[in-house]
């Protein structure tokens, strides 16, 4: 699949995503410059992690106004696939493409560690490689990952099945109660780790699938996010070879 990875000033997971798409999944990948006004013929565009414009005002706030974002929006409207990871998720939120907003982590500190996620939907282009209810281990690395919205909006989000990943405990149980802070790593409302749009072709998630896409790092739980997105069969053993 023809894939684009957007480079904003301050992106720093751009090469990591590129590497997985190109070398682990054998796709046709290009970098897209934030100043470009077209995504060319890409069918999947990834907004990578990092600190676009230093995240100086609010994470993602300045990147939204880059010329490329109009083209990304267009692609999404036309049914193309858009994946925002970490800073990319924050940018999608600031762009109003997913609803909700990010606040600083509950701990008020940057958190770099593994989180456990439950796959809430496996019928999306990004999750078809998983089983519904499957528990994944995936690294997070962010300071502003606490997803919030009004109760009403959250209810609607849930109702429409737009919660794609949720932070859970290592057994897949709810990250609630006394242990909530341990598992819901940033204090997100309803332990939301990733959401999609109505149509299901735009996904934003805080954890980094590209950082756990290779057995070398002791974890390839994230590979199927990217593999699914580019339509590589969910038979991941084949992909890994």
């Amino acid at each position, binding site marked *: 699949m023809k894939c684009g990875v957007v480079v904003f*000033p*301050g*992106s*720093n*997971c751009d*090469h*990591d995503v590129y*590497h997985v798409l190109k070398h682990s999944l054998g796709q046709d990948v290009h970098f897209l410059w934030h*100043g470009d006004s077209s995504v060319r013929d890409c069918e999947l565009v990834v907004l990578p*992690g*990092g*600190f676009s*414009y*230093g*995240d*100086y005002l609010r994470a993602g706030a300045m990147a939204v106004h880059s010329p490329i974002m109009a083209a990304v929006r267009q692609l999404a409207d036309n049914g193309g696939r858009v994946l925002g990871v970490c800073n990319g998720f924050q940018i999608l939120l600031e762009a109003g493409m997913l609803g909700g907003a990010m606040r600083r982590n509950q701990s008020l*500190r*940057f*958190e*770099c*560690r593994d989180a456990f996620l439950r796959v809430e939907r496996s019928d999306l282009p990004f999750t078809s490689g998983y089983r519904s209810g499957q528990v994944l281990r995936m*690294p997070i*690395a962010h*300071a502003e990952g606490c997803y919030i919205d009004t109760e009403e909006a959250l209810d609607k989000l849930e109702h429409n099945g737009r919660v794609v990943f949720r932070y859970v405990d290592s057994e897949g149980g709810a990250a609630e109660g006394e242990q909530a802070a341990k598992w819901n790593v940033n204090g997100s409302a309803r332990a939301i780790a990733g959401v999609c749009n109505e149509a299901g072709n735009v996904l934003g998630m805080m954890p*980094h699938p*590209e*950082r756990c896409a*290779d057995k*070398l*790092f002791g974890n390839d739980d994230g590979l199927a996010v990217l593999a699914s997105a580019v339509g590589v069969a969910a038979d991941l053993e084949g992909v890994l070879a």
Partner: protein
Amino acid sequence: MSATRNEPPVDIDLAKAQGLAEDEYGQICDILGRVPTYTELGITSALWSEHCSYKSSKVYLREFPTEGEHVLQGPGENAGIVDIGDGWVAVFKMESHNHPSFIEPYQGAATGVGGILRDIFTMGARPVACLDALRFGDIDAPRMRYLIDGVVRGIGDYGNCVGIPTVGGETSFHSGYNENILVNAFALGLARRDRIFHARASGAGNPMLYAGSATGRDGIHGATMASEAFGSESESKRPTVQVGDPFAEKIVLEACLEVMRTDAAVAVQDMGAAGLTSSAFEMADRGGVGFRLNLDRVPLREPNLSPYEIMLSESQERMLLVAHRGRQEEVVKIFERWGLEVAEIGEITSDGRAQILAGGEEVASMPISPLAANAPMYRRPVAVPSDLAARQEPPEVPEPSDPGTVLERLLDTPELGCKSWIWRQYDHTVRTNTVIGPGGDAAVLVLKGSTGGLGLTSDVNPVYCSLDPATGGAQAVAEAVRNLACVGAKPVGLTDCLNFGNPENPEVSWQFREAVRGISAGCRAFDVPVISGNVSFYNETEGRSIPPTPTIAMVGVIADVRNLPAAHFTAVGDRVLLLGQDANEFGGSAYLRLLYGVEQGAPPKVDLEAESRLAGLLRFLVSDERIHTAHDLAEGGLGIALAEACVGGGLGVDLEIDCQPHQLFSETQARAIVAVAPNTAEQVMAEAEKRDVPVVDVGAVGGTALKLRCDGAVVNSEVEELHRIWSTALPRALEM
């Protein structure tokens, strides 16, 4: 040349106020053949400062072995370079940011990271990893929690934003740092061997370009200046704290690497300490050329900076480049595309002089190489510390009444507790090269596109160094080698950060000389060259100096990173083998210091040959994929090493050890534990014996407790409980 503008007249008093000694002032007058201008005086005092000239340390640093088969660039450039095979080179260096971090921990530590990253990418290498070595005082000392929090946030926020993982480091606490904390930042970059860049200016007529952030009054050494003589108003406007802008750094980094790929640039250098002065002079001196700068063209953040201020500003995230005449447009375009300010501020000349213009006047005209060649160098008086013999008296070692309780008490200290509260605030997985991050003995990076990788570690034990700096220096090198060996890495080079007190104090000078001697001996024994480094003197408050702290950061190569052992136990049933032989050594031990407040005795002896044999054995075992676990013994001895190996994987052990209970905490060097599948234990033991490394099988992995019997004493501690104590010790002490 006449005095320009309304600058103060230069005389010996002003020179002294700027930190120049009387004969240094005489020297510069001789070199110029006249009295320097105000700007020239500032330039000279900066270039000849301890920080830039290494005047008190140079005579000793020459002892370091700096050459080796892998070394492409030793000390003298922005960073050292070693060949790591397959056409790749590793570029690395460590630097201190101690004083700024004590004043303003967040910005001090952040700009420390920024500075070391620039040192790496100016060489054409992409930074891929950082380490941070931190020394704090007692947690309850004034401001200490604030300092710790600020330093950790500063390092995290800067490195995270630039997108370079901090994959390891070290952290220790000692009252000797109550008033002088240490922040040492290490960075490593990778480059293709044929794409290395040197900061060596050449080619008369080539334009000099300034790129990055605009210049403000940051960090000019206002304190040492004669303030009456020079507008006290502008003095008061000078910020003492430099503020880092990691976003600017990130784009400067990307833009510089892009520029270097074009061949349009001749030389690139960052503006670090002494800013434009040191970058321009060093670049020209290395290339044997001169330059002409027009300060009116320097981008300024605020109006009305004097030439003196522009030359000495330490504003962050700025670069100086020399481009090939006719190709500067390409360079300019790249910087502009990244949204950076760029200006042509001068050109290279052939006369070997630094000519500096401002407001149509010449404010400085100095011959460059004599300034460098005549930089002062001192062999300061040395004296053995008067209390040394007393401090080295053998300590009394109390027998623990219950070694299990002792173990728990040790794990409950910030010193020996888990440091994850720190490294969780650092992105250690970005760039997806981190095979082993913080928490093991050494960090491991994979070199993408191959199975090979690098091991990185930073080590020193300041308590040992204070009891015997030569032994402490050698021990730091040995420990680094040992930590690398645990992940199968063969050392290729090291960088150091030598943190000491006031070199004008003969006892400090002695410490420095001895430490360098010890490090050099270590380097020779392991055949590891020093390829770069940094000296930080004057870590002293009210006459009290820090413990001598020569931090060593070492890099090793690993042929295959795919099946490395862990630092913790991973498989039930594994045999636990103890390598090395205890000699009951407690001088400077954690046991005496943390439980009894005693820092007494000679530090553990360093047997460099035994260390070499152990490291060789460990590397062999790792490369042969025969071991599941490898963890060296360091602070806290066998007891702490076992506890760490248990809590790291949540597995217990059942062991029988032939020693007296207190020996569990002896810190004899050249020891490690490994765990192996039962059916390979014999082979491994035979290999150890063949290599003359003492080895005993002490028991097996399994169960939920750390169980151990020695000389009638019993330890039986639930691993879960040990984990709870160990993992929360630091945040509890910090109350964060």
